[in-house]
């Protein structure tokens, strides 16, 4: 009796979960497994995949563009993540102050992250235009230089970093929520001891915010190594000289311009492994430094 009831409950449960289960299997699990298989094949979409073993992977390591695009993605992540983290925490701390118009400022700094990526990209192309952009209109009279932001091999990548920093609103809101969790008693005790604001931030706020920082940093690692839309729209072909050619754009070109699905799948799996390892290392490293309030 009880088993049959359990069975019927299990059945009903599975049934309710079925839309998700089916969706997950059809749209995620199957493509995932298929792409893993494809990564060992030569596959041009219309002819059946031909098994070539590890050739795609060994080719990758000899592929100059693989290293170059991976290097570009790493450069971007390595600068964008720390800068974005510092800016987002800084903003969150400022916006946590009880000042007049607090709600307005919070909305104001969050707004940029709501702008869809295509208009955002076009907007920044205008701002950074070397000849008629507003940024050079400000810089030129003061510094007497007119940087060619979009065309200079040394500058173009950094334009994307500035853009990503401008859009830290999401992370900022998460930090802001984290700041609400910090118990006020700790600050009161610190005040009694005569601690300076800087010391309070360093000794109380940041340690208690550390789980949130860890979460945001891990999400940023995943996000920035996969950045695609901005460089794809703003710098066709990775111009100038492929300095803005990011790894995910290379995967896209390989798959959908050259129809080399096998090679592109191998690249996708390499990126997955890299992100996996980095995330693991980040969590392992930070876990020692993170303070959980419950401890």
């Amino acid at each position, binding site marked *: 009796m009880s088993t049959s009831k359990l069975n*019927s409950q299990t*059945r*009903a449960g599975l*049934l*309710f979960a*079925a*839309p998700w289960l089916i969706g997950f299997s059809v749209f995620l699990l199957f493509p995932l497994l298929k792409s893993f298989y494809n990564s060992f094949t030569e596959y*041009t*979409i*219309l*002819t059946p995949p031909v098994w070539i073993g590890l050739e795609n992977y060994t080719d990758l390591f000899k592929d*100059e563009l693989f290293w170059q695009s991976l290097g570009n993605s790493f450069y971007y992540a390595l600068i964008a993540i720390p800068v974005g983290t510092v800016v987002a925490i800084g903003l969150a701390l400022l916006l946590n102050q009880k000042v007049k118009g607090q709600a307005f400022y919070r909305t104001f700094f969050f707004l940029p992250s709501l702008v869809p990526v295509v208009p955002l990209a076009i907007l920044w192309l205008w701002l950074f*235009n*070397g*000849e*008629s952009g507003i940024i050079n209109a400000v810089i030129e009279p003061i510094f007497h230089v*007119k940087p*060619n932001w*979009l*065309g*200079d*091999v040394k500058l173009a990548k950094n334009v994307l970093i500035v853009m990503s920093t401008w859009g830290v609103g999401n992370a900022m809101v998460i930090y802001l929520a984290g700041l609400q969790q910090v118990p006020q008693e700790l600050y009161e005790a610190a005040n009694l001891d005569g601690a300076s604001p800087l010391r309070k931030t360093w000794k109380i706020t940041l340690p208690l915010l550390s789980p949130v920082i860890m979460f945001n940093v891990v999400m940023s690692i995943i996000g920035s190594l996969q950045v695609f839309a901005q460089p794809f729209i703003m710098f066709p*072909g*990775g*111009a*100038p*000289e*492929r300095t803005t050619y990011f790894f995910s754009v290379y995967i896209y*070109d390989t798959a*959908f*311009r*050259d*129809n080399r699905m096998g090679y592109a799948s191998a690249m996708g799996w390499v990126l997955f492994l890299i992100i996996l390892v980095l995330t693991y290392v980040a969590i392992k490293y930070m876990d020692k430094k993170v303070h959980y309030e419950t401890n």
Partner: protein
Amino acid sequence: MNWAPVAWVAGVAAVGWALFTSEQIIKPETRTDGRVVVTYWEKWSDFEFEAMRKVVEKYNNSQDKIFVKVLSVPNIAGKTLLATSGGIPPDLAGLYGPNVAQYAFNNAVMPLDEFANEAGMDRDDYIHQYYDICTYRGKLWALPTTPASTALHYNRDMLQAAGWDPNNPPKTIEELTELDKRIFKKDGSRITKMGFLPTEPGWWPWAWGPIFGGKLWNGVDKITMDDPKIVEGYTWMGSFAKQYGSGTVSSFQEGFGSFNSPQNPFMDNKLATVLQGVWMANFIEKQNPKLNWGASAFPYPANRPEMANSSLLDLDILVIPTGAKHPKEAFEFLKYLQTQEAMEMLCLGQKKHSPLANVSEGFLQNHPNPNIRLFQELAESKNTLATPKTPIWAQWGDEIRTATQSINNGSKTPEQALNDVQTKMQPLLDKVLRHERALGIEPRSEDMAE
């Protein structure tokens, strides 16, 4: 309450609905009047699409067996390929000329030889160069829609102001360089005018070698980016950035508006000459009808007069994807489109010249482009230049584009940059040939000049 029955009903309904609608999507469309529906995806939107739509409408009204349904589809090449691999391709797809080899190589399109033979159509019906763009490995895979040849467009007023006879535009590369020197103007560190700039519009970075008489490959199995004439072409291309400073030139260029705007540098009197296609007249008419302009064949190197009248060829094509439901009916429409009347109607609407060997005098007279005869003649010149017919062209072309950036930025010499393209692309070409040999296809010359 026991929810299980409700869930079952909901689940079954959902699955049924999904199956029903997918059937609607996949099932070939039928009409109550019994006409076969040919689905046709076209890359163009705007006036070019409108011109094609009118031809389709005329065809639909001319008979009662076939109904062509034309749809404007962005990112046509990728979508056609994916739909074909999914087994639900359109019956006709309007792709680009350089797609032919890649699609034929991937079995994505049907050979049209039998249909064409049956219909009595052959190479001589067309300007040969355009017909050749539609073939690969000796088979016909596509048929032309609208073509385009290119020429040097020049601003008469700017030539005159620089003391250059506006009725005698530069004939040689050397004269073009000289014209640029005369027109070039700077205001402080800022360039305000140039005579010519190879990177504007920058749509054909592969062309500078061939314009100098160089060959990108031997047409069969060897890429020859190190051909001295190609090096010469790119050295000339890079000489502008080298002479004026690459940063200065690219700042100048960043100030240009988009192609179809009054701030287009040629229409805005910033650039006295530009390499552009037969379509340009239409955009000038739209954006700056007062512009006093002319067109002539693109200059050739003075020491190589045999390279006179060179012209880059672009071609829009129609293919029948593999697995199309109505190939026969699709070809019926293709056949109609290739008649002189339909083709001239289309080309007039898209403001281009005709790919056909026979052109009516009325077409040339009614054409809105005052230089249409020049473009028609250039398309038949012995020095027409088209992209190499190989499945790796998309990647090869991108490599050349990156090489031109390195040359212009001065980070690589032309020799180095071209050599890098060579070392990168040759193994990929070898791979294609190995693949084809395994299928019993022997490489043969795909050289357009033959």
